[in-house]
């Protein structure tokens, strides 16, 4: 992918190192089930998406069946749900370990950075460990209060999710 770099006049300079720190923090919040703090990393118009494994880059939640396609309201409801004991799939809570690597800044437009990284997320519950493999595509807005996630698209590099069963955690 060619890089486009058209920084806005007032956009703070962000390096790959800065985004690595940011994404490591996001991963830690998820692993520690600090979901309210995790949600605070997102903008008010944010979207979180996990396409089905037969989707393409051109697929959108408007034209294709995804696994997850949350607007900011539903993402907040997802967090509310996961914080409850009545979210049976995640109670007792699973243990997760989110790892991110190969972090790259792909383009910058104004103060919006397109950042991608690879991920492996492990989830263990009922003595079964599932391995979620893929890459995240972020749009991250950098403002006075630091970076905020405007879009997170988690693309599974799998042919199906038969080995995972379900996506009851945030990956």
């Amino acid at each position, binding site marked *: 992918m060619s890089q486009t770099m058209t920084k806005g006049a007032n956009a703070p300079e962000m390096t790959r190192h800065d985004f690595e720190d940011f994404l490591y923090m996001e991963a830690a919040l998820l692993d520690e089930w600090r979901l309210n703090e995790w949600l605070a990393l997102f903008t008010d118009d944010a979207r979180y998406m996990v396409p*089905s494994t*037969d989707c393409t880059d051109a697929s959108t939640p408007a034209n294709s069946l995804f*696994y997850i396609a949350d607007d900011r*309201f539903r993402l907040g409801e997802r967090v*509310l*749900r996961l914080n409850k004991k009545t979210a049976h799939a995640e109670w007792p809570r699973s243990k997760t370990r989110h790892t991110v690597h190969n972090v790259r800044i792909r383009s910058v437009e104004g103060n919006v950075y397109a950042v991608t990284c690879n991920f492996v997320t492990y989830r263990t519950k009922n003595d079964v460990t599932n391995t979620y493999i893929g890459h995240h595509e972020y749009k991250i807005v950098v403002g006075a209060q630091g970076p905020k996630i405007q879009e997170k698209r988690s693309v599974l590099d799998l042919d199906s999710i038969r*080995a995972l069963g*379900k996506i009851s955690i945030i990956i």
Partner: protein
Amino acid sequence: MEKQSTNSRSQYVIDDGNSGLFKVARKSFVDDAVLADERQRIFERCWLYLGHESELAKPGDFVTRVISGRNLIFNRDRGGAVNAFYNTCTHRGAMVCREAKGNAKVFQCFYHGWAFSDEGRLIDQPGKEAYCEGFNDNGSSNLARLERLENYRGLYFLNFDRNAVPLDAYLGGVKEYIDLVMDQAETGMEIAGGTQQYAIDANWKLLCENSIDGYHGGVTHATYMDYLANTVGSMTNSGLGGGGRQLGGGHAVIEYSAPWGRPVAQHVPAWGEDGKQDIVAIMARLTRNFGEERARRIALMNRNILIFPNLVLNDIMAITLRAFYPIAPDRMHVNAWALAPREETPAMRERRLFNFLEFLGPGGFATPDDVEALEMCQRGYKNMHAVAWNDISKGMNREQPGTTDELQMRAFWRQWNSLMTAKEATE
């Protein structure tokens, strides 16, 4: 007491209409021998869903699919005919098609290069001169075709038993409900892009039960109900009211009103004025085509339909087709699709898919909890030596069981039991 009761007892099912008791033996979910028998008596004999006509829109279109453990090619050939073939080279066995979907005039095996037309005919073999004249005159080296492939309203089913009754007769009483779903489209239904392909570590019959189970909703899906209550304008004041029906042949349904929005056609305020205009136009068309009473039933009622043995057609806040297959007594594979009218506006399609994901699928607010419940049932059956029977008696004391009763599950089990205990005809 329940008029549909068979008043019978087998090693698997106790159906006692007089006492209002219905019990299913837990060994039905765990035994390898039961699964082997199911493959013989059910999956080899019943009509199984293969795919939807919209997946083969153009000549040459194909999809590959695993149905009851068999690797199959489902395609539309240049002449427009729809076919199903066993995906195996007649030479040495390799799968001749290794892609999930595409468009092909020829399926060429990559092992030695045998090539088959989209009608399954063997059209080329490298080194042809080394084969005797008339090598394939009897057609035995053509791709093997599924002889029984039939379609009802765009749904293609196959049968591994060439002597099976016609699909139309097999579907029988469930056609009324398939029609209520398909009639929502003016120009036909289509599969919206994207397939959910997941797995559950539980017996396949637990998903038959769960997909038409109105009893578990309030408890299992408490967080979904919380979510609905938190949304602004995503509900009407329609209550949950309706009933379950046994449709014959193991097919069953619950039909009911519900508060959520339906793309065809129950408006909710969150869809705004544009959405309202769409819904008004759809209602007008349905009324024109079917009269007011049927139009209202199509548009405002919800249906969870089980097409025996393993296809679910749920017409709720969106429409899902869900087919599932046993892999082992304690594991199933599930394929799920979203079905939608072709003529639907882009805005309504977006609402439909948004609706779908709030409840349905392995990343939704409800299905993951169903999966957990089914898997916990399967683990609970480890105790079957102490607790050997499940109870499915709810509503047996009623003239017309409601949606939270279990008549529709008993309908499934009565047919399952009848096939599993029938005296085998001698060959």
